[in-house]
Each structure stands twice: as C-alpha cells, then as structure tokens.
C-alpha cells in the first residue's frame, strides 16, 4: 500500500489537486450532486479527507466512481474548483494503485475495449462486454435488449476506421508517453520525505486563499 503522504503528493502535484486547498467546505457540491445519497462520503468530505491526508480511504470510497460528470457542483462551487476533474484524477489514481473498485470501472473497460480495437464503439458492443462480467445486469437488461433488437437498434460490431493501423500507431505511441510520465512520477515519489517536499506541508498549514 502506497503511503498516504505519497498519494497526497501525487494528487496535489501531478494532478494539480492542490486546487482543493481553496475549498471552504460549504457543501454546495454535495448538496447539488445527484448521486450524493449513494456515496460513502460526499464530495465535500472527500476533499476534506484528501487535504487531511487520508488518501487511501479517499481512493477506496465509492464516491469517485459515482461521479457522473454532470458538472452540477462545478457550476455552483463558490470557489470555482474543477471538482469533476479532481474526481477523474482520483479515479485514475485508484486504478494505478490497483484498489478494488465498484462496477463502474468494469463499465469503463467495456467502453474502452471496442475503441482500442476498432477506433469506435456501438452501445451494444459495450453492453455485451459489460454483461459478460456482470451476468445479473445482463439478465435485468435482457427485456430491453429484446425490445431494441425488435426495433433493429442493435448493431454489435462498430464500423472500423479506414486508417485503423494509423489509429493504432497513435494509441501505441500515446501509451508510450503515458508510461514515461508514470516512470517520472514514480521517480519523483521516491524523493518524498526529503527536504524538498516540505513545501507542500507548509501550504497545508497556511492554505492560500482560504477565507
């Protein structure tokens, strides 16, 4: 398990999560979130916990996976914090840490699969892939699937790109760049605890711009 301090550093520096130092804990985000009732902690609490350094718990919470990207909180936040973007960052960090996550990650994998394969997707391809890992959900959605099939609205295989080899080359190159970035971050993480890191903690004591 990666230490809370390292995780907070990755969140604050690599993902610019230190923007949450501006948070005044008003709770407008949690109040406007359509999925807050189902979250382990509302977004307000998540940001408080991240500031306090309880990062492993933040990454384990279902909160980040329930964020649906509706941007309700973002337009209402009196401190103009890009909350949705921070949720994306925390999701990616949870993946990196291999933290077991709720069903949404399986859905995202099902979504990304045809994109990587063909450059495009069909809704049916995503549902089928998700259904393989979640037979109960597949069963629940079966009647809907039949209704859609009767209306000829199911097409499993996406129309592949004309230049699929070119697209794949781009994606491979992108993966290479992502890999290099990760290595750089890992290298930086080993520096944590050394004097250079004191900066972050000073900022924690005197958050800039907090009322």
């Amino acid at each position: 398990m990666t230490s809370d301090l390292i995780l907070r550093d990755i969140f604050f520096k690599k993902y610019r999560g230190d923007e949450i130092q501006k948070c005044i804990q008003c709770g407008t985000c949690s109040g406007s979130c359509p999925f807050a009732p189902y979250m382990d902690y509302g977004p307000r609490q998540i940001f408080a916990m991240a500031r306090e350094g309880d990062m492993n718990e933040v990454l384990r919470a279902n909160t980040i996976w329930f964020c649906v990207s509706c941007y309700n909180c973002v337009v209402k936040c009196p401190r103009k914090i890009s909350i949705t973007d921070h949720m994306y960052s925390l999701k990616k960090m949870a993946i990196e840490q291999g933290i077991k996550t709720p069903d949404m990650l399986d859905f995202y994998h099902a979504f990304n699969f045809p994109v990587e394969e063909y450059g495009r997707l069909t809704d049916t391809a995503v549902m089928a892939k998700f259904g393989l890992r979640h037979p109960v959900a597949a069963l629940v959605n079966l009647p809907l699937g039949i209704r859609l099939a009767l209306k000829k609205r199911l097409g499993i295989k996406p129309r592949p790109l004309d230049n699929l080899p070119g697209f794949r080359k781009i994606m491979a190159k992108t993966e290479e760049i992502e890999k290099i970035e990760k290595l750089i971050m890992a290298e930086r993480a080993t520096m944590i605890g050394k004097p250079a890191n004191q900066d972050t903690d000073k900022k924690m004591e005197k958050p800039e711009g907090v009322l």
Partner: protein
Amino acid sequence: MRYGFFPGCSFEGAAGYRESTEAVCRVLDIELAEIKDWNCCGATSYWSTRDMKAYVLPARIMALAEAQGFSEIVNICNACYSTLRKADEKLKNDGELKVKVNLALGEENLKYSGSLDIRHFMEVIVNDLPADRLKKHVKIDLSDFIVAPYYGCQLNRPWGDMDDTENPVLMDRLIKRLGAKPLENYSAKTECCGAAHMVAHKNECIILNRRIVKDAVVKGAEVISTLCPLCQFNVDSSQGRNGLPDMPVIFFTQLMGLAFGLTGKKLMLNKLLTPLKKAV
C-alpha cells in the same frame, strides 16, 4: 451553410436521430459534412481511466477536421460536444500537453493546432439560421403541442457561455419558432439522466429519470424533446419502470421534421420505445 460534422458513435443507433437530422438538413439546405475517418471521442470513460489517451482521442478528431479544411465541428451528442470542447480548452492552455499529444498524432501525420470552434447542432440551428428561414418551412400547426425541453448536463455545464446553466432557453426558443409551446417552468430541464451510470447503477438512475418525466407529466407536457442520444435513451427506456404515464421522448430534429410536415416514417418515429401517439 456547411459545417464539419462529428456524428459520434451513438448517432447511428439512436432512435431516428440520424434519419431526422439528415431529413431536416435537406429541407433547410444545411450541409453537415462528416469528418472523414473520425474516431470515438473517448467520453467520460477515457477521462476517468487514461491520462493521455483522453486528450489524444478528441485531438485526433480535431486534427482530422483541420486537415480537411473545416473551421467548426458540429456535434449532435452532449458528451461528444463536452469532450471535444474540454480537450480543446486544455490543449490551448497547456503547451506541454499539446506537444505530447501532437507527438502521438504525428504517427498518422496529423497535427492539432487549436483553430476550431466546437459547437452543438441545436445551437447552430438557433443561432446561425435566421428565424424566418426556419419558420418558412413550418407547414404543420403545432400550436397545441406542449413540448418539455430537456437539455441534460454536458451542453451548458460546465461553461455556461452558450446558455444559462440553470435555466437554458435555446431549445425553448427553437420550439417556439416551430410553432409549438415550450413547457413553462420545466424545473427538470437540466437534471442529470444518469448517463452511462444507467448500465451499472440502473436503480439509482431510474429515480433520476423519474424526476425528469414526472415534472413533464405534472406540468402538462405531451412530449419531451432531447438533444443527446444518451439522454434520449435513458429517459425513453426508463418509462414503464417509474410508475408514471408514458411520456414519449424525441429528438429536437424529429420535432423539427414534424413541424416541416415530414412523415413519421421518414423521421423514424417507430424506433422510439415509447410511441408518440399524437397524430401530428
């Protein structure tokens, strides 16, 4: 009027969205020129899972559009619209990120420079097309037809520069120009439909969709008009599970087609799960 057009992955399978969009474009003499060899934008799935691919996917679409000589990209899906716009904004303001993205795009000899306007087709119809040019094609009297304008999330949020974030009015305006009545005080017009969470969190999403439908029912709407394939699918497919009377959910392009006197067959109204019974 000619625009670069990004149809996105859901356009084809959405209930008559493609057919009705093509039909009204013919009537209005608008050309939506498909960006050749477009790929999936990645949507919230890639924002949630990948650092760099989340930018490269929309950047490839924009680079293709630039190479094909377009100055604008018109979207018909809220998620595509917001993904392209979000990527465009970040890339414009982050030179380092732009260099990395272009390094990857170079594998296909493509380059993103950031010269495009990212737009939504509904907004194009309202803002670019003079009202009288639209109105002269209206052939059917829809003055008794009360339409609930449902905008969903990723059109006005997070930006709020095209329209108001709380109470957008662009589609209301379109409905009026078509001679129909936009539902007044439709509070749920920007509520979230649950988007892709419908797959993994169906029960929670049904509750959200109930509010969108209930508000329209209580206030007397006969139909809900949408502008995003995922919104349309979620609100339409939640019917019958929320204990409310059926409320047909159509695309704004189908509403336009109805006003123009196009047949239900042409607009593929038979693809809707909840049938539009009213004979218009």
